[in-house]
């Protein structure tokens, strides 16, 4: 065990994973409360189009992924707020189109030698130092934003109309939140991949939601579940030689099922 922990790639994996767990744990609370799970799926798949465009143009795929994810977040958000068409319909169209564009871009990039599977499913054991620095920088910004607006975001999730009357900048918070989700998705591409990140943005919050009525405790529990999922999943990946993104998501689902079976909210009010 100690041997494993002394390996630099494992240390980077644990550090990166813990940063992602803290961010995803907090974000997933709001995703569950505001029922935005499908929006997370939409944004993450949109990012794939960006990755592929980067590969085609020969520039850093992260840059194009961030642009695509942010554009996806803002388009989905504005369609959702204006109620032009149903939100699920717009997400269904947008993410399939972005994936299709991604496939076309990759087909056009004839001499690419990029591991597309790595972007889709991630490999946390392949993190390098610069990935960690990027995750720390983005993570600090995100947590700072959430710390400032935490109560206001709870208010907007609970009763949006009254929040507006109280002068809370509900629309600004909504778009900022979606942009934060987009940034989180991009920094997590290498760790769990585009396909699996949406699970990390939903399961920890959904698990904690079944335990408590106290929103602070809910947030703390959500982060703890995310950390447990990342650490246990990571070790499972190492020991059983399985893809880390998948073992992390399966571990999170396992924790979710245990809590679902115990159903604590029906027993005691926390």
């Amino acid at each position, binding site marked *: 065990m100690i041997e494993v922990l002394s390996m630099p790639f494992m240390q980077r994996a644990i550090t990166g994973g813990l940063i992602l767990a803290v961010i995803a744990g907090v974000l997933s609370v709001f995703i569950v409360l505001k029922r935005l799970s499908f929006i997370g799926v939409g944004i993450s798949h949109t990012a794939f189009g960006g990755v592929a465009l980067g590969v085609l143009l020969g520039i850093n795929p992260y840059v194009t992924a961030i642009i695509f994810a942010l554009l996806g977040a803002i388009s989905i958000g504005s369609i959702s707020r204006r109620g032009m068409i149903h939100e699920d319909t717009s997400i269904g169209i947008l993410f399939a189109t972005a994936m299709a564009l991604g496939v076309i871009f990759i087909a056009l990039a004839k001499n690419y030698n990029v591991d597309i599977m790595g972007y889709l499913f991630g490999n946390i054991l392949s993190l390098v130092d610069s990935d960690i620095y990027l995750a720390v920088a983005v993570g600090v910004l995100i947590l700072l934003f959430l710390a400032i607006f935490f109560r206001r975001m*709870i208010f907007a999730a*609970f009763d949006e*109309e*009254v929040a507006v*009357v*109280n*002068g809370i900048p509900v629309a600004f918070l909504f778009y900022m939140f979606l942009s934060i989700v987009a940034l989180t998705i991009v920094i997590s591409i290498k760790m769990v991949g585009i396909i699996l990140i949406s699970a990390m943005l939903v399961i920890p919050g959904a698990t904690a939601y079944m335990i408590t009525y106290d929103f602070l405790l809910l947030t703390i529990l959500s982060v703890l579940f995310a950390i447990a999922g990342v650490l246990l999943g990571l070790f499972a990946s190492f020991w059983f030689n399985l893809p880390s993104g998948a073992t992390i998501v399966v571990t999170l689902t396992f924790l979710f099922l245990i809590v679902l079976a115990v159903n604590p909210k029906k027993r005691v009010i926390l």
Partner: protein
Amino acid sequence: MKKALRVSGLNVTLSGRRILENISFDVEEGKILGIVGPNGGGKTTLLKAILGLVSYEGEISIFGFSPAEARKRGIVGYLPQRSLFDPDFPLKAKDVVALGMVKGWFGKLPSDWKERVEHYLKLVNMEEWKDYPFGKLSGGQQQRVSIARVLAGEPQIVFLDEPNTGVDVVAQEDFYQLLTKLNRELNLTIVMVSHDIGVISSYIHEVACLNRVLHYHGAPVCLTQPEILKKVYGPAADRVLVHDEKCENCGYPDISGGK
């Protein structure tokens, strides 16, 4: 006396349909205005327009400010029509009341926020329920906690949309007495949409009878004048008046079976 609310030449059109037409009225500070009218008559839309939640033409001024400015300054309180809350939402009654004090972009909670939460929960008789999940309370209890939330923001004017939906008769009576008390003690201006027009008539200073256009605005005596109610409610007017013990010789048949 100072004008708390001034509405002038207000028109609202939603999805191509004119909902409100040329509405003008004033409310003086410290008054209670009841807005009555049939379903679909535009009562809720009127409140939303005053609060700047739907787009409108015309002029609206709340203590001299536009709706957006009034919201920014935190001088308005709003209780929307009761909606169904997720019973598992992670907020307790005390948290909901505290939200009423969260205002603007960066406004901080007042240092005595915990005492204020206790105070307002006590005022609406819900202090025993402070640690109970809000979503698990009964409809009437949720409504009282929501009133406490509105009051905790210490607004100068409050807008209440059908505050008694789903509340039993005894609780309704208590609720109106509470409103009267707050109005007197805090000089709080109250604008309230209601359908139980017979009951509210004894608690309000003025009434506005609304059905797309404003048919009457003035003392609640209109509720005893069949011709005005007929204009607002049409032939169904006979059936809209809920009589109470203070309602005598109102000119309407008692359809409650002499209760």
